[in-house]
């Protein structure tokens, strides 16, 4: 059904000098259909008000009518850049409820896929954020590496973006015979190219000036706003679910939780760039040590969860994803709640962008790494 865009005019309370601008729902920097109503004094932002719902599909309601095997595929469409991790969190929640033991091979495969997804997501973020700041070329360099990951995914999982590879009890297929070699090739390519990222963007004086001290989120605010993932960690909050509540084999691999204390856009940038290397580190440790064995635990054809409430958490590329299932003992969930990281991160946008310039808003939105379907669900 067609719905008219709400254009918010300056209300009577506003000072006559204020300029109200609708950024979005169609705007190059909002990466989707986020609609921000910003109130400006000159070029200085007085207030940012997000208007959501342009692609709200009510996934939570949809899931109430889908079985426990079926609902997982829908979650790929939430944060489409970390589709594997969303699926993983849902599969984990079902496994937790059924008390299924996932075979060791499937655990390792899941972690490998999660980390590859994280790299792909951060790559896309890096390119898109540079584009928000006016540098177009990094986007293409980022996509070159991301494309390699997508090809690997396509070969093993059968799709490039919405893989639906995680199923309750394990993974859908075994790894493709080429998988290990291709991942190793990718690591080599990536290590060759990552220095370019620093030359092109990280070290660039214009980029640093654009992001340093912009959109500062203090530690207390980050916790209060529920900011997780790179956004929270850039403010000094230790919130990596992989470290705090290790799932699968994250407690057996060594990696660092990247924490920066600055809280500004540049810190958020640094956290993600450093996380890329940590993900590579995890993959390097696991790629040669994939245990043999089953890829799926034995499950019944129709899954029935016991009555109760189940919550599982996973670290997506954007932060903590929570899956909260309330079961009445049937084949479909009674209620599902997805605690999406983007939603909480977005709520901090108004707070941190007040008093900065329009150009800063793009830097802040770029480094918050907003994926709109994740926020709207």
């Amino acid at each position, binding site marked *: 059904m067609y719905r008219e865009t709400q254009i918010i005019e300056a209300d009577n309370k506003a000072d006559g000098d204020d300029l109200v601008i609708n950024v979005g729902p169609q705007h190059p920097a909002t990466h989707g259909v986020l609609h921000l109503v910003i109130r400006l004094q000159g070029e200085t932002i007085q207030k940012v008000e997000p208007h959501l719902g342009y692609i709200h599909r009510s996934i939570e309601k949809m899931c109430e009518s889908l079985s426990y095997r079926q609902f997982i595929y829908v979650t790929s469409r939430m944060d489409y850049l970390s589709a594997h991790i969303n699926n993983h969190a849902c599969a984990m929640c079902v496994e937790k409820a059924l008390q299924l033991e996932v075979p060791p091979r499937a655990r390792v495969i899941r972690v490998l896929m999660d980390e590859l997804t994280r790299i792909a997501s951060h790559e896309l973020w890096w390119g898109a954020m540079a584009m928000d700041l006016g540098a177009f070329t990094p986007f293409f360099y980022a996509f070159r590496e991301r494309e390699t990951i997508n090809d690997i995914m396509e070969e093993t999982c059968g799709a490039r973006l919405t893989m639906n590879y995680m199923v309750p009890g394990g993974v859908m297929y075994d790894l493709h015979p080429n998988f290990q070699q291709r991942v190793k090739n990718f690591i080599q390519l990536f290590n060759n190219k990552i220095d370019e990222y620093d030359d092109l963007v990280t070290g660039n004086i214009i980029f640093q000036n654009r992001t340093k001290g912009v959109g500062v989120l203090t530690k207390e605010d980050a916790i209060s706003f*529920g900011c997780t993932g790179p956004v929270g960690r850039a403010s000094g909050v230790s919130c990596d679910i992989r470290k705090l509540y290790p799932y699968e084999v994250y407690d057996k691999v060594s990696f660092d939780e990247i924490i920066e204390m600055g809280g500004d856009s540049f810190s958020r940038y640094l956290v993600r760039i450093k996380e890329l290397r940590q993900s590579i580190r995890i993959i390097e440790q696991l790629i040669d040590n994939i245990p043999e064995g089953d890829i799926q635990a034995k499950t019944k054809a129709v899954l029935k969860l016991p009555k109760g409430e189940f919550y599982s958490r996973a670290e997506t590329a954007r932060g903590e994803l929570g899956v909260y299932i309330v079961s009445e003992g049937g084949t479909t969930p009674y209620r599902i709640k997805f605690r999406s990281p983007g939603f909480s991160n977005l*709520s901090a946008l108004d*707070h941190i962008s007040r008093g900065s310039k329009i150009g800063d808003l793009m830097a802040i939105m770029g480094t918050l790494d907003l994926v709109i379907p994740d926020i709207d669900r």
Partner: protein
Amino acid sequence: MTNNELKDHITQGQPSAVFDETGEWLNVQVEAGEWKAFANWLRHDALQMDYLFCLTCIDWPQTKHLMMVYHFTSTTFRHNVVIKVKLDRNNAEIETVSDIWRTAEFHEREVYDLFGVRFLHHPDLRRLILTDDFEGHPLKKDFEDPVNMIKL
């Protein structure tokens, strides 16, 4: 802190709390009227529950109530607790906690939008996702929308 210790603490702060330990974390049920004071106590007193990571609502049409569910973690002590508040389904009202946890501001607007729970003293209680003139609350179990919902 183990669940038992948490229980002891919470009983001191809120003697009327009802506990339920079937889930992964300790579930505490409190009355809607006592919620605001209890929330303040949770945040600022010994438990230091500073991170509200999930705020949602569940609709139970059979027993005619809505259940607000708050998931808390303390970033200092790393203990989790789940708080539940039962509300009347036809007249759902609860005090906001957006002044204690800023993240609640958005989450409460979402719950208001999708469940129709009114949060008293919320700074900006408007529909977040749907248009202002939308009728009904889609996540309620009895919501019907013949135009936009496709029955499979």
